[in-house]
Every structure is written in structure tokens, then in C-alpha cells.
């Protein structure tokens, strides 16, 4: 059974002035435990698609269902709550709260979910250990490298025990070593914890690590291969 089901998604920006058709009749299903890359040239609609799958944006027409819950008809406030409980996010940048330490950043999302203290501490430390940044727990994001910051972001995303994690170009600001490291950790979490990842990229090294590659072009899915 799929956790994400996008049916016939259309997204048009600037409907009233110069319309931009960012997504055209996109149909996509993602199953639990998948490790999927959304790829394609710049401007093909990757960010738009991820935003719609994550309930950050609404499609012009079409329907998104996440584990039997249709999110395209939800109100704004319901969506915030839904995202908190079901979806982990990793953005290209500005993932972390600069005034909180690494550990606090990871804890924060669990605090929003009202999880008990022991669980927050335990899961937080466990994730930081998995990410290999245990010793940075008491440091602020500004004291971390870009790659380390993104690993904290992945830890933060996983801390909420989401149905799946959406990552929009998580490696765009990273050098090749950090890119490989981050992808390896994501793949490991996918294998060990069965965490579902959907990420966008146009980096070939990242694409190589994916188990499923969905290619977009001008807002249409042109290929979808599993490996």
C-alpha cells in the first residue's frame, strides 16, 4: 500500500497574469520504505511537486492522499498539525534554529509533538549518534559545517517519526564529500529504520544512490525507473 498517492496534479502559477504551468497531470505513488529521487533540469517542477506532496502548497487541481488521508482539502491549521505528525522536512538551507544547540534543534520537533522527556532525550541522542555528530550536541548550528548541519536536519526530520521524509535538494549547498556522507546516512536510515525518503536533486552522484528515480521535464513525469 502506498503512503503517498498523487493523482492528476496540476499546478499553475500566476493564473491571472502570465500563467506558468509548473506541473502537468502528474500521477505518482510512493510506497513505504522507498528511497526515491525526483530529478530533472532546473525549473522542471521538482520543488513544486515536493511542496504539494508535503502539504506546504496546494495543487491547482488534483488530489494528494497520504496514508488514506486526503490533504488537498485540508485547512491551513489542520495541515500544520498534519505535517507535524506525519512528514519530516529537510530543506536546502535554513533548516535549523540558530539560537538552539544541535540537540535542542532535534528535541524541538518532539517537543512540538508533546513527547515525553525521556523519549526526547533518548531518541535525540540516538539519532545524533547515527548521524555521527554526537560530540556536536551542545554546539550551535553556526559552529557546524554545512554537511553537519544537514545531518542535524535529517536527524530533526526523523526525530518526529514521520511517515516519510521530504528533502528538497538537501545536498545543493554541500561539497562532494559531505554529499556522499549525507546520502550514505540517509540510505542507512532507510535500510535500518525503514524510513521513507523522497528527495529532489540534479546531482548525478545523488541520483546514483537512489533506488527509484522519477524524472520530470516541463512539469511532466517522463520516466520512472526502479533499481
Amino acid at each position: 500500500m502506498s503512503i503517498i498517492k498523487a493523482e492528476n496534479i496540476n499546478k499553475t502559477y500566476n493564473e491571472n497574469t502570465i500563467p506558468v504551468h509548473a506541473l502537468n497531470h502528474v500521477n505518482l505513488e510512493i510506497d513505504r520504505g522507498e528511497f526515491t529521487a525526483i530529478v530533472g533540469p532546473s525549473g522542471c517542477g521538482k520543488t513544486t511537486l515536493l511542496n504539494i506532496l508535503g502539504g506546504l502548497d496546494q495543487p491547482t487541481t488534483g488530489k494528494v492522499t497520504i496514508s488514506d488521508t486526503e490533504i488537498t482539502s485540508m485547512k491551513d491549521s489542520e495541515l500544520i498539525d498534519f505535517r507535524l505528525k506525519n512528514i519530516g522536512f529537510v530543506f536546502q538551507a535554513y533548516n535549523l534554529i540558530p539560537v538552539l544547540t544541535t540537540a535542542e534543534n532535534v528535541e524541538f520537533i518532539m517537543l512540538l509533538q508533546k513527547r515525553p522527556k525521556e523519549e526526547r532525550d533518548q531518541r535525540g541522542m540516538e539519532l545524533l549518534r547515527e548521524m555521527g555528530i554526537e560530540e556536536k550536541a551542545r554546539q550551535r548550528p553556526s559552529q557546524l559545517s554545512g554537511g553537519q548541519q544537514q545531518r542535524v536536519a535529517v536527524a530533526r526530520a526523523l526525530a518526529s517519526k514521520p511517515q516519510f521524509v521530504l528533502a528538497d535538494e538537501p545536498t545543493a549547498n554541500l561539497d562532494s564529500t559531505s554529499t556522499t556522507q549525507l546520502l550514505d546516512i540517509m540510505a542507512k536510515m532507510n535500510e535500518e529504520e525503514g524510513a521513507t525518503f523522497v528527495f529532489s536533486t540534479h546531482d548525478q552522484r545523488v541520483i546514483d544512490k537512489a533506488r527509484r528515480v522519477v524524472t520530470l521535464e516541463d512539469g511532466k513525469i517522463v520516466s520512472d525507473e526502479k533499481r
Partner: protein
Amino acid sequence: MLIKIAWRNIWRSKGRSMVVMGSIIVGIWALISAVGFMNGFMVGYMADIINHDISNIQIHNPEFKSDQEVKYVIPDGKKKVNEIRKWTEVEGATSRIIVSGMIASARKGSAVQIRGVDKSNEAKVTELDSLVNEGTYFDGIKRNPILLGKKLAEELKVKVKSKVILTFMDESGTPISARFRVAGIINTSSVNLNEMTAFVLNEDIGRLLGSYEIHEIAILTMPRIEEEVVLNKYNDLFKGDLVETWTQVAPELELLNEMYGSMMYVLVFIVMMALVFGIVNTMLMAVLERIRELGMLMAVGMTRIKVFLMVLLETIFLGILGSPIGLFFGWLMMYYYTTNGIDLSAYSEGLESFGYSSILYPYVDSSTYLIVTVSVIITAFIGAVYPAWKAIKLKPVEALHAI
């Protein structure tokens, strides 16, 4: 955690936080000083008039008020004063014989109210002796000593020991003239005492009038005793006299008091408005600077209420930090000036003619500190609401993409 974030956010942009904190400090300090100075002016001025001129309560024959004739005396006045002095609510009571008349020096003449006083009790009730600026309090003159206000003395061109002639009519309308000698010159902020009153002793004026019956009783109540208490007690005991508190004797003072109150509100309002704009501005900057961070927080599932609270808390913390400092500076300034006073004598020529004394003693009561602080914090709060509102109006997707 929200508290932690808000608290740490304050230290993120120190300059900006200092601006907000600084305006809160200056706001509180400015308000306290303004209240202090205005208190010094207005309340000090009023206290002067009440203490030295009007007293808390005055008693007259009901006819006397409209027609100050010698015949309208207080029946058994002397007995009543003696009785009142025994009351525990009363600090002092003094009797006066009041006649309208003319005063003339060798050079000039002027209309005056001749106020016969009871030397020792007058000193107790109005501290008339303390107002004597040159010469003595009725001492050192063998016959018919008189005290004149400084203004009046200048007008008549008389000095201590100069001779003046008082002319007035007795009950039957017979004019009486008598020679008095200036024992002392008094200086006060009350225009009435300074320009239009001549103080003589009851025994002198009584002898000249041929009657020692009194026209006025002035009462100084004990501290923290409501005037009404004494007023009611008197009315219960002695019927038929007109008993008035200072607000009834001088309604213009009450009016002044109210005017002063509304001026304070205007002032407070102006300072608050300035503060609100300052805070709105800087906090809005803080929000705009963090637009992507706020977008991220909303994207990952932080509710709008929490985002709103976070921004609000930040300003509240600044208020809580700034208030004690502002209070301290305000208090320090008041402490200094309340004890030392501010000498306005350089500008006092003009001021004194309005009835102000040349040394100003600003003061604020402790409730002012509380009121000022609470209103500044409320203002800061109001100033923070708009930026916080702006923050929650952000759409996560757009905020994340903002440059």
C-alpha cells in the same frame, strides 16, 4: 523551549535589542521624570497654598462668604476653636479677625485684606512664621506689628521697621486709622498672601475694632485624616456655621488638579506612542530578517499561535529587562532632586510672579513607578503584536523562498 528561543533571540542582534531596551528605559525614565517635575510644580504649588493660605478646613459665618463685613462673626468663635483643638483628628486650629481695608505707606496706597491672627496657633496651622523672609514673626516691634507679603512691600516701597497706616471701618461704619510698623516680610508662592494680605495680631485689630469676635477658623487636620471627618464632626456639634474644605474654598485649585491629571494623560500617551512606533519598527525588522527561519518552523509544524507567542515573548523579555533599569534611573534622578531640589532662581523672576517658588522639589509617589512600568510594558506588548501578526501571516512556502 519557546521561552528559551525567544530569550536567546534577544541576544542574536544585540544592537537591535539595545534599541528596543533603550527606548523602554528612556520611556520609563522620561515618564517618571515628567511626572516628578509636574508634581513638583503643581502639587508643590498646591500644597503651598493649602498649607500656608487656605488650610484643610475653614469655618465662617455663612453670610461672611458673600459679604465680608465685620459684623458677620462666628458666634462663640473662641470657644469653638478651643474645643476643636482638643480633637484627635486635628493638628491645629487658629482663629482670625478679618477686615477689608486700605494700607498706605508714605509713598503709596493699596487695598488689602487685613488678617488678624493668633500668633502661636497661626504658626502651628499655616507655619506663617516659616514664611518670614526678612525681619521677624511679629517680634521686636513694641506697638502694632504687621507682616506684609514681599510683593506688597515692594509696591508700597516699605522695608522692615517702616511705618504703614491701615484704614478700615468698624461694625458701625466708623472709619478707623492706625499706625503699624513692619515686623517682617513674608515670601510665598501664594499670590493672595504675597500681594493682597496684611497680617496683624488679633489683639491689636480687636482693640481697634472694639470687638474680639472672630470671622474665620482655619483647621489643619492630622495627616491621613479625611477632611470630611472633621467637617462632619463640626457640623454635628455646632450648627449654623459654614464649614468648607479646601476644595470648596478654592475650587480653582481642584480644577487645576484635574487639569494637571489630564495633562499627565496626554504626556503619557505621547511617550507611549513614540515607544510603540519604535518597537513596531525594530521588531518588524527582526521578523523580516528571520523570515526563512519562521517559514521553516511553520513548515515543520509549529502552529501560528506558537510563532506569535515567540515573537511577542521576545519583546516582553526586552520590556522586563529594560524596566528595572529605567526605573532605577528614574528613581535615582528623583532621589537626587527630591532631596536637593532644583534651583530655578535663574529663571525665577518670571516664575515667582505666577506664584511658583524658586526651588522646585520634584517627587513621585511609589504608585507612579508601578503605573509607569505597567503602562510601558503594555505599550511594548502592543508594539509587539503587529510584528508578531505579520510573522504568522507568512506562508511557509513563500517565506522559505524569500531572499
